[in-house]
């Protein structure tokens, strides 16, 4: 039998087993973990110290018409369902996406995603109070999308917009919003 600090045959075999087992486990687990966590790192978005909520809205980069600018009343939000081509995982389809259109003045228009920036609850326009009201924790926003009260940390999320020959078009939502 071995004496002194030399490795015994038994511990050598056990150490080798640990090493081989560890290597096998790594090769097996690494792609599985990589695949499952891919959505968390694939977008390559810069890491922020303070995170914000993200609207659950199905995204589209297409420009979609929401209506004639002249048809919208200044300062009064109009809720519209716009058919947009979206990509939902493996499914590419055209689905209705709800937006709040608020004409700011003669030429300007803001189109908001109707989710509270606190935790994403659905915002509804309260005609009486003249505010967007969140039913979850009482957040409210004015017609310009600015926070009036409650916990929301930032203004309502705005779509990229442009007006083309009197027609209001919306594009993408800001990344990570």
């Amino acid at each position: 039998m071995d004496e002194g600090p030399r490795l015994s045959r038994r511990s050598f075999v056990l150490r080798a087993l640990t090493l081989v087992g560890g290597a096998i486990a790594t090769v097996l687990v690494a792609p599985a973990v990589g695949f499952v966590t891919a959505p968390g790192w694939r977008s390559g978005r810069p890491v922020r110290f303070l995170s914000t909520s993200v609207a659950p809205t199905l995204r589209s980069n297409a420009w979609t018409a929401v209506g004639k600018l002249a048809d919208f009343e200044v300062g009064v939000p109009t809720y519209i369902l716009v058919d947009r081509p979206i990509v939902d995982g493996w499914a590419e389809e055209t689905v209705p996406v709800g937006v709040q259109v608020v004409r700011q003045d003669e030429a300007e228009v803001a189109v908001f995603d109707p989710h509270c920036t606190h935790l994403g609850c659905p915002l509804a326009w309260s005609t009486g109070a003249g505010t967007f009201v969140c039913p979850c924790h009482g957040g409210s926003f004015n017609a310009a999308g600015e926070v009036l009260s409650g916990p929301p940390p930032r203004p309502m999320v705005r779509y990229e917009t442009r007006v083309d020959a009197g027609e209001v078009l919306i594009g993408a939502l800001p990344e990570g919003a």
Partner: protein
Amino acid sequence: MRRIGRWIDERLNISPLVAGFLDRPVPGNIGWFHTLGSATLFLLVVQIVTGIALSMAYVPSPGSAYQSVLYIDQTPFGDTVRGIHHWAAGLLVLFIGLHILRVFIWGAHRYPREITWLIGAALFFIVLGFAFTGYLLPWDQKAYWATVVGTNIAGSAPLIGGAVLEFLRGGDQLGAVTLARFYGIHIWVLPALLLILVGAHLFGVIRQGIAASPRRHALVADEPGLSRREAYEREYAAEKIAGKPFWKSLLKDAVVAAVLMVVVVALAMSQGAPLEPQADPNATNYVPRPEWYFLDLFQMLWYFTGDLEPLLIFLVFTFGAVVFLLVPFIDRGTARHPRQRPIAMGLTAVVVVAIVGLTYVGASATPAGVVKVPSTEGMTQEELSGLSTYNEQGCASCHQIRGLGGHTGPDLSRAGFRWEPADVRRQIVSPKDTRMPSYDELTQQQLDDLVTYLTSLK
């Protein structure tokens, strides 16, 4: 039957193991409160059996999930199985909570059972994970909106929040990928972790023996010079000598399991499992409410506002979770009887009252934005007109009157007692607080009546 048993035993030699398990001595003062752990285990088994059955017809895709749940409900026994899964889930959260409370009050988390506590605490988080992921699967309104809120809360962690949210949703948006992930986590990842940890938890319980109910005075006299281990083993040996064989306590567990089974089946058959309309991402008037066991957390979010809110929430939740995990390393010492641990019991009471209180407030609070304050008897014509203006203008989204309405602005239940009519009028037309919109477009009559109504509240 006996012959088959003997035939198997001759080959596998199981009977000594079974006898050792059933006849092992346990402390004598084990009572009904000790059945909370086995009740939790029983409910887990119920969830596994019904969950497997449900997976035979459920399809995790936004286009089919809701329809497959409707199909389950229309298949014979389908609504009962889904009902059992739903009601047992709620009871599971309740019983694991009570079990934790029992263990802490009895001081059973102390030396040498710290590892059993750690594993149990991990199991508690796994059960909450089951609840959170299971929620989304029916793809009804409650499922969709609870997941919107839940993933946003998880995503509020500093630094890693964004990645956590994208990991949970499978991207920015909530859709097909989210549902597939939640399904995978719910039926594969969490059950695998659950089985491993339940095994380890039970191994700990059997290996260490069941903790005796705490005594104010030890069975054996204190002997100086003994190590902690020696002192513990002497006392526990005395408990076992004064104790009884394990099988004697099994009947209580069976009674509790049977009662739970009857309750769950009765609830499932009489109430079924709730199902709201199919998830509508474009709903504008839906009021998201979590299941009762998340109401306390949901309600807590009322009390944090501002830019640092996500950080505060994260710190509070993380602090709570870490303290909970590390309980056996914080609450040390040898005196296990509740009366000898006034601080620990006081803090426990505070936590229990906070959880029950937040759940109650969350359950009874009317959601902001949709509240209408009702009229009361004896109101004048002007006051009634003022009240209808109050309701039309949506004042209740921020203000409370007799418990109805939001919390953002001051409570107006005693407005007439607190303020002069002129002040109330000024506050409505040109508010000092910038968070309140100015209602300067009301007619003179509307304004007069509103002020009359508000100042009539005393």
